[in-house]
């Protein structure tokens, strides 16, 4: 079990660089912790931007600028006249693009992956620090390129984040040749950043674990990021290739996707979703891993069914590659293929169910501490359950014929991405902020932020199920254009008000985040009394992380072990003869 990976990882690998100082530290540091923080700050900035785009969208849906009023005026008196239908399309395209590629992925993988992997495995840094820093700057450039679309002729890409061809690939159809090209270029560059990160993580986790830290002693956060890195490595190049083909189609006269010249529109969909579905798990697996760790820390319990958790994630990783067709049930691809994808899609729900039951098992018999981090982790579990359940409706091929591309799916993926990933990100920020900045976040502000976010999130996104079942399509700039949707308009306005509440609640978080850097209570090495290696070093850890490479003697979750004076056993705590004899056998 406990294979010894490298005898002295801190000296042996990836630590051949000096500590950068001053402004250089934040511009061109090779230290994984600084790179992690660079990702954190940049993607929190993008979170504000993506949220602002969402609020503009919501305002247009509640008070459309195109609506014809009884007196003949076009536009509602309180509408935003600058949101014309084309700009609306650009808004939701860029909202999704920003949130997926510049917020959720870089927060989970860029920020926490970078910060936590070396610390949790007892390494001095990543295997390839230079590539790590390059990956960050490619990510920044990709964001700049995508957003540049707002300032070019025709405006930003407006074909949806899925950019279905031939709308996206023929300039005459989309009217946003430049914006769409920049979008595809941004996706391509972003893909390079992901690929660089992915092989760096894999190499680091395989080669640089501290002595005694076998794979089955790894914290689930590391397992999740490890599996995610494989998904990135296999899925992202496909999207990059598709993006390159899109650029060629738009600018250089090729016709990969244009049927008028012999191309094939469904090719884009297959390429996109071959990336796109693993991408869904790329955005939830690290959240699952980190939430598992947070749940254990604050219920003072070992994770329930550690190996089941690991194998469930591996199963999700494999199955994630054979379910992409469920996005295309009604695209007109071969109908038997739809049936097959329907079965694999139902099967992938099983490992998610296993994980949920194990989270409940982790709570069972615990000594639960309701910190802000824990509240967010519990919300993650609950919201993920709702998001998972709504997914079952769409996995059923016949029901999909009805609910496809309605607000039902918008509700579904926001429950998974915001309710799931973002709540897990908040849980993780509250948990590891003390390690990152040496100070605690304010718990009172944190709980207010949590309560408001939780309430407004549900008020905003739950009714979307209902308007979707009522027949409201996604991606329409003005629901009142349809007679049969006008009766749903009060619900749309209610959703918009909740979205505004949700958006403004986040300001409390940002206030807490920046204020606590100076004014938070000092954290100390291990404020949560957690077991893993990052809690054995200073907060924030010094350059090189570990003065001496730690040796690991325990699994990551030895909480409440009987016969110990404390209710946790650090992973690097040498076993005493006494404790060793009482060590319980793993159940089953």
């Amino acid at each position, binding site marked *: 079990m406990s294979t010894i990976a490298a005898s002295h990882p801190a000296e042996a690998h990836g630590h051949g660089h000096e500590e950068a100082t001053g402004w250089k530290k934040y511009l061109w540091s090779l230290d994984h912790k600084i790179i992690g923080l660079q990702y954190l700050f940049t993607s929190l900035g993008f979170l504000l931007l993506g949220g602002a785009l969402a609020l503009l969208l919501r305002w247009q849906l509640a008070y459309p600028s195109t609506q014809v009023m009884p007196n003949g005026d076009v536009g509602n008196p309180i509408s935003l006249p600058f949101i*014309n*239908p084309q700009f*609306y*399309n650009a808004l939701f395209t860029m909202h999704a693009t920003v949130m997926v590629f510049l917020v959720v992925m870089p927060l989970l993988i860029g920020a926490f992956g970078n910060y936590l992997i070396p610390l949790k495995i007892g390494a001095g840094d990543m295997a390839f620090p230079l590539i790590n820093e390059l990956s960050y700057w490619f990510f920044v450039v990709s964001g700049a390129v995508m957003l540049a679309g707002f300032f070019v002729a025709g405006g930003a890409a407006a*074909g949806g984040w899925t950019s*279905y061809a031939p*709308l996206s690939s023929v300039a005459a159809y989309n*009217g946003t040749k430049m914006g769409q090209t920049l979008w595809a270029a941004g996706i391509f560059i972003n893909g390079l950043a992901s690929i660089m990160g992915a092989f760096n993580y894999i190499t680091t986790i395989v080669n640089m674990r501290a002595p005694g830290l076998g794979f089955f002693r790894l914290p689930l956060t590391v397992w999740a990021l490890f599996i995610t890195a494989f998904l990135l490595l296999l899925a992202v190049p496909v999207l990059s290739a598709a993006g390159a083909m899109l650029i060629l189609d738009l600018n250089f006269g090729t016709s990969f996707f244009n*049927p*008028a010249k012999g*191309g094939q*529109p*469904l090719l884009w969909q297959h390429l996109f979703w071959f990336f796109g579905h693993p991408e869904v798990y790329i955005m939830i697996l690290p959240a699952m891993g980190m939430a598992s760790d947070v749940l254990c820390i604050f*219920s*003072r*319990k*070992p994770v329930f069914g550690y190996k089941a958790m690991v194998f469930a994630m591996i199963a999700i990783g494999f199955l994630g590659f054979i379910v992409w067709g469920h996005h295309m049930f009604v*695209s*007109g691809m071969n*109908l*038997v293929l*739809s049936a097959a994808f*329907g079965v694999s899609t139902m*099967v992938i729900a*099983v490992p998610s*169910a296993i994980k949920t*039951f194990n989270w*409940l*098992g982790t*709570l069972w018999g*615990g*000594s639960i501490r309701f910190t802000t981090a824990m509240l967010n982790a519990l919300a993650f579990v609950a919201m993920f359950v709702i998001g998972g*359940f709504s997914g*079952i*409706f769409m*996995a*059923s*091929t*016949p*029901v999909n*014929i*009805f609910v*496809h*591309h*309605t607000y039902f799916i918008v509700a579904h993926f926001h429950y998974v991405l915001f309710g799931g990933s973002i709540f897990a990100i908040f849980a993780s920020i509250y948990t590891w902020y003390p390690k990152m900045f040496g100070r605690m976040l304010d718990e009172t502000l944190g709980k207010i932020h949590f309560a408001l976010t939780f309430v407004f999130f549900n008020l905003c996104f739950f*009714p979307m199920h209902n308007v979707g*079942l*009522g*027949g409201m*399509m996604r*991606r329409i*700039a003005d629901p009142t254009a349809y*007679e*049969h949707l006008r*009766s749903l308009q009060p619900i749309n306005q209610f959703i918009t008000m909740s979205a505004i509440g949700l958006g403004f609640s986040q300001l409390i978080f940002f206030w807490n985040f920046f204020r606590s850097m100076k004014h938070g209570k000092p954290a100390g090495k291990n404020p949560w009394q957690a077991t893993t290696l990052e809690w054995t070093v200073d907060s924030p850890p010094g350059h090189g992380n570990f003065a001496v490479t730690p040796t690991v003697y325990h699994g990551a*979750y030895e909480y*409440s072990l009987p016969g110990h004076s404390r209710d946790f056993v650090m992973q690097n705590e040498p076993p005493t003869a006494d404790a060793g004899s009482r060590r*319980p056998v793993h*159940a*089953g």
Partner: protein
Amino acid sequence: MSKLFIPLATLLLTLSHSHAEIRQTSVWWLPRNVNMFGHEIDFIFYVILWITGITAVAVFSVMIYFIVKYRARPGVPAIHSHGNNTLEVIWTTIPVFIFLALAIYGNEQWTRMRLRTPPADALPVAVVGEQFGWNVRYPGPDGKLAKMTAAKVSKENPFGIDPQDPDGHDDFTTYGELVFPVGRPVRLYLSSKDVIHAFYVPEFRLYQDMVPGRVYDFVWFKAEATGYFQLACNQLCGQGHYKMFGKLSVVPEPEYEAWAKGKAPAATASSESSSTPVAVAGR
């Protein structure tokens, strides 16, 4: 009753012909279903709703119970447990069976709806999307549509037909207007001139993408009630997407016949000339 109802409904339909059904009640829920396949879709929807609803209540009850019961209290340590393999087997097996059952039953219905040959007496109707409207082609008295070839679809020939096709001479076309007889199967021939559009009518529980370069002939349905509905494009197709809708009415058979007669082309008129856009992209 029904004899009285039909003229009454026809009258109401004519009076309110430009108003789709506006739901006054139950805006929070599914609109009424008028398609024969909709019953199965609604049935599976409710089965899943019950299964997930009951499971959700169970999961959240357990979660809240644990949260309350196992809150940190001084002097009460947590239980040191790494799990239980029997439980793992149980909560893996049960979902496997539930999900497989859902997949198998769902696929059976999917096959019924999409893979079975439409009935021979189905009324064939061709619908070809374009930015931002609907070209519709109906068969004339011969009941046959001209054969559509995806490769021939072009600006001038939206239906991709052979002008010499004898089946096509009595066909008639509309732009954005669909009328279906109630109780008779309708078989759709779907395609697109430019980008992907989608044929979506919530009351029909029906969504189908229309990908350019292909003609889909497997979608069929049977309307079981009359009414006026809106056909919506439900695949982002450009800036006018949000108002790419069509008028769709289901009427009694005699009324349909009368409507079709009124639309039938003069013997010499080209069937393509009636393609006058009525829904133009908004700025």
